[in-house]
C-alpha cells in the first residue's frame, strides 16, 4: 500500500513538473527570451496574403513571440468571440469592431501603447481615429474618448468614374472634391448612359448606403419622423429611383454595386459607380482610365464618406497584453507599408501613403488621396441596420412606381419605432 502511494505521488510530481513550464504566465518585454504565444482570431475572409506576411514579419522581428492564428467565417466571428468572452477565454488579439465588447470593457484601450510606441496618429484618417466628443464605434476605433483599435489600411466608399466616357460625352470630369449632389450624379449618369452599347451611366446602392445618414436621421441619430419623410429625403429617394426607372442605373438586383460594381466598371459597362475604393488593382488591370470622386450627397447635407479599417485590438483578460500591443503597434506602422507591397491597399495614414508611393503616379489614386481626408464620423445609431429596414422597403416601392412622399410617409413612423427601440436598449445598457 505504502509503495503504491509513493509511486502515485512521484507520478503526480513528474506530471506537474512537465506541465508547469508550458507557457509564460507573465508578459515579457521585447528583449526577453521567454517564449510567448499570442492567440489571434480573425475572419476567413479577412485573413489574406497580407495577414500572413504580417505575422511572418512580426515573428521575424520578435522571435520570442509566436502568433497562433485561428480564422472563422465572418458571419460566425462575433458569435465565436461572444462565446469565448462568456467562457473567460477570449483570444489575445483580433478584430474588435463590436461596440458591445467595448461597452462591456472586454477590449483594452490602446492610448498608453500609442504614447509609449510614439505612433504619430496625426495623419491617420480622422473618421477612424475619431472625434472624442462623438461615439462612432461602428466605423471607427474610438469610443468615449479612448482608442480601442488601430488598422493598417483605409477602406472607403467612393465613386470611380471612366474618364474616357466623360471625354467622349463632352462632360467635364468631376473633381475629387467637392462631391456632386445626387441630382447632378443621376443627371450625369443619364447623359452617359448608352443603351446601344450596354453601358449604364452610373450605379449605386440603396440611398442609406450612398448619401449621408443626416438625410434620413437627425444629427443625434434619435429622430427619423419629419426627416426621413422630409423634403430632402423624398427628393433624394425620388431622384435615385428615377435613375433606375429611366435605365440610367442598373436595378439593385441586376447588380449589387458593392459586390460587383468594380467588375462591371472594369468591363466598361459603367461610366460611374459608387463602390468600395479597394478595387484599384482590378480596374487598373483592365486598363481603364479612371478617376475618383467623393460619393454624392443630398442637397444641403454635409457630405459623408464611409470608411473602415482592420480594427485590430487586444481583448481584456489577455495574459500577454504587452506582446499583444506590440503586434498592434507593428501592424499599424510597418504593417501599413507591408500592405502597400502585398495587396496594394490604401494605407490608413496619408503620410505613409506618400512615403510608400502608394499612388505610383496614377492620377486616379492621387484623386483618392485627395478624397479620403474629407471623411468624418458617421451619425451614430445603435444597431443601425436594424433601424433602416423600412427605408429599404420604401425605396423598393419607389423604384416600383409608388410616389416617394407616400412611401416615405409610410416608412418614417416604422423607422422611428425601430430607432426608439434601439436607443432604449442602448441607453438602458449605459450603466
Amino acid at each position, binding site marked *: 500500500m505504502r509503495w503504491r502511494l509513493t509511486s502515485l505521488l512521484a507520478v503526480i510530481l513528474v506530471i506537474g513538473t512537465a506541465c508547469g513550464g508550458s507557457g509564460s504566465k507573465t508578459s515579457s518585454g521585447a528583449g526577453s527570451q521567454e517564449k510567448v504565444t499570442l492567440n489571434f482570431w480573425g475572419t476567413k475572409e479577412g485573413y489574406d496574403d497580407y495577414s500572413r506576411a504580417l505575422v511572418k514579419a512580426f515573428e521575424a522581428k520578435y522571435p520570442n513571440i509566436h502568433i497562433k492564428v485561428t480564422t472563422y467565417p465572418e458571419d460566425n466571428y462575433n458569435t465565436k468571440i461572444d462565446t469565448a468572452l*462568456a467562457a473567460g477565454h477570449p483570444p489575445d488579439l483580433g478584430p474588435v469592431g463590436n461596440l458591445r465588447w467595448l461597452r462591456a470593457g472586454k477590449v483594452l484601450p490602446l492610448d498608453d501603447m500609442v504614447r509609449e510606441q510614439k505612433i504619430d496618429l496625426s495623419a491617420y484618417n480622422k473618421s477612424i481615429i475619431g472625434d472624442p466628443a462623438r461615439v462612432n464605434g461602428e466605423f471607427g476605433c474610438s469610443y468615449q474618448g479612448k482608442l480601442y483599435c488601430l488598422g493598417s489600411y483605409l477602406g472607403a466608399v467612393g465613386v470611380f468614374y471612366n474618364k474616357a466616357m466623360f471625354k467622349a460625352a463632352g462632360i467635364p470630369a468631376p473633381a475629387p472634391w467637392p462631391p456632386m449632389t445626387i441630382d447632378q450624379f443621376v443627371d450625369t449618369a443619364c447623359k452617359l448612359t448608352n443603351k446601344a452599347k450596354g453601358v449604364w451611366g452610373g450605379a449605386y446602392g440603396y440611398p442609406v448606403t450612398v448619401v449621408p445618414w443626416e438625410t434620413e436621421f437627425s444629427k443625434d441619430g434619435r429622430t427619423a419622423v419629419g426627416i426621413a419623410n422630409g423634403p430632402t429625403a423624398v427628393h433624394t429617394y425620388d431622384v435615385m429611383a428615377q435613375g433606375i426607372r429611366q435605365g440610367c442605373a442598373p*436595378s439593385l*438586383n*441586376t447588380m449589387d454595386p458593392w459586390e460587383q460594381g468594380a467588375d462591371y466598371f472594369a468591363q466598361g459597362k459603367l461610366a460611374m459607380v459608387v463602390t468600395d475604393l479597394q478595387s484599384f488593382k482590378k480596374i487598373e488591370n483592365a486598363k481603364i482610365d479612371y478617376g475618383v470622386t467623393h460619393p454624392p450627397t443630398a442637397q444641403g447635407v454635409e457630405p459623408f464618406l464611409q470608411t473602415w479599417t482592420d480594427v485590430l485590438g487586444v481583448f481584456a483578460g489577455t495574459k500577454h497584453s504587452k506582446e499583444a500591443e506590440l503586434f498592434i503597434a507593428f501592424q499599424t506602422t510597418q504593417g501599413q507599408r507591408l500592405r502597400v507591397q502585398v495587396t496594394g491597399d490604401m494605407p490608413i495614414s496619408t503620410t505613409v501613403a506618400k512615403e510608400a508611393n502608394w499612388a505610383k503616379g496614377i492620377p486616379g489614386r492621387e484623386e483618392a488621396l485627395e478624397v479620403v481626408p474629407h471623411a468624418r464620423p458617421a451619425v451614430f445609431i445603435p*444597431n443601425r441596420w436594424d433601424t433602416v*429596414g*423600412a427605408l429599404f422597403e420604401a425605396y423598393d416601392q419607389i423604384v416600383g412606381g409608388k410616389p416617394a412622399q407616400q412611401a416615405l410617409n409610410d416608412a418614417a413612423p*416604422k423607422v422611428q419605432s*425601430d430607432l426608439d427601440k434601439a436607443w432604449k*436598449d442602448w441607453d438602458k445598457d449605459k450603466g
Partner: protein
Amino acid sequence: MITAKTSGRRSRLGRLARREERTAYLFLLPWLAGLLMFWIVPILWSVALSASDWDIISKPSWVGLGNYREMLFDDRHFWLAIRVTLKYILLSVPLYIVAGLVLSLLLNLKLRGMNLFRTILFVPSVLSGVAVAILWVALLNPDVGAVNSILRAVGIDNPPRWLGSPTWAVPSVVLIGLWGVGGGAIIYLSGLQNIGAQLYEAAALDGAGPWRRFRYVTLPMLTPTLLFVLLTSLIDAFQVFDTAFIVSGAQGAAGDSLRFYLLNVWYEGFRNGRLGYASAEAWVLVIAAALVILLIFRTSGRWVYYEYDPEKER
C-alpha cells in the same frame, strides 16, 4: 396459500427483477445523461433566459415578463416577422400540398422511365438550402435572370421584381421552396401505392369514373399521408431561415419584406446581442406552433380516414 417455499421463490424473482431493472437503467444512463444535458437542461435554461436580459458577455439580469411585454407592445419587428411568416405559411403550405399531390399522381402512372423522373424530381429536395437560395437569387434577377427573360420573351413587358419587390418578395421565397416539392411527392407516392387495389376495383365495378375514384377512394385513403405532409410542411414553414438569410444577408439588407420569424430571432440574438429577448421570441414560436399542431390533431378525426380504425371496429 403462501408457503415458505413460494415466498422464497417470489423473493428470488423480486431480487432478479430489481437487478435486471438496475442493469437496464445502467444501460440507459448514457442516453438519459445526454437527454438531460442536451435537451432538458437547455430547455429549462432557455425558459430562464427568456425572462432575462443577457448579451452573453455580461451577467444576465432578471426582467421577468419584460421581454414578452416588449415583444407584444414595443417591437414592430416582432409583429412584422409574424406577418411575413404567416403570409409565407398561407401561400406555401396549401401550394406545396397540392403541388406534391398532383406530382405524385403523375409519378404513380405506369410509364417507361418513371424511376428516372422520380429521381430527377426528388434531387432538388436533397440539395443544400443555401446553394438553392444562391441559385434562385440569380434566376430571379429582375433584369438579367432567366425567369424574367422568359417572361419578357412571352410578351410580359414588366415582369415582377421578385426579391426586390415588397409585394413579390415572399412569393419569391415560396417559388424557391416549390422547387423542392419532389420530396413531398415521394411521400405521397408511398401513400398512393399503399391504397389497396380492391378499393379501386370495387369503385370501378360500381361505375365510378376517374374523378370519382380519386374523390372517394384516393383522397380519403391518402388523408393520413396528407396529415403527415401538412404537419411537416407547417413545421418547415414556421422555421424558414436559410433562404431568407441568404437573400437578406446577415445585415438584413433586403429590408422588411423578408423578415421571417426565425431570422428575426437570429438578428435579435446574434446580431443585436439580446439572447434573452431572442429566447423569449423562440418560446413564443414554440407555443404558437404547438397550438397550431394541437388544433390540427384535434380536428384530424373529422377528415383523416384510416383503412383500419380500431375506434370504429368496437
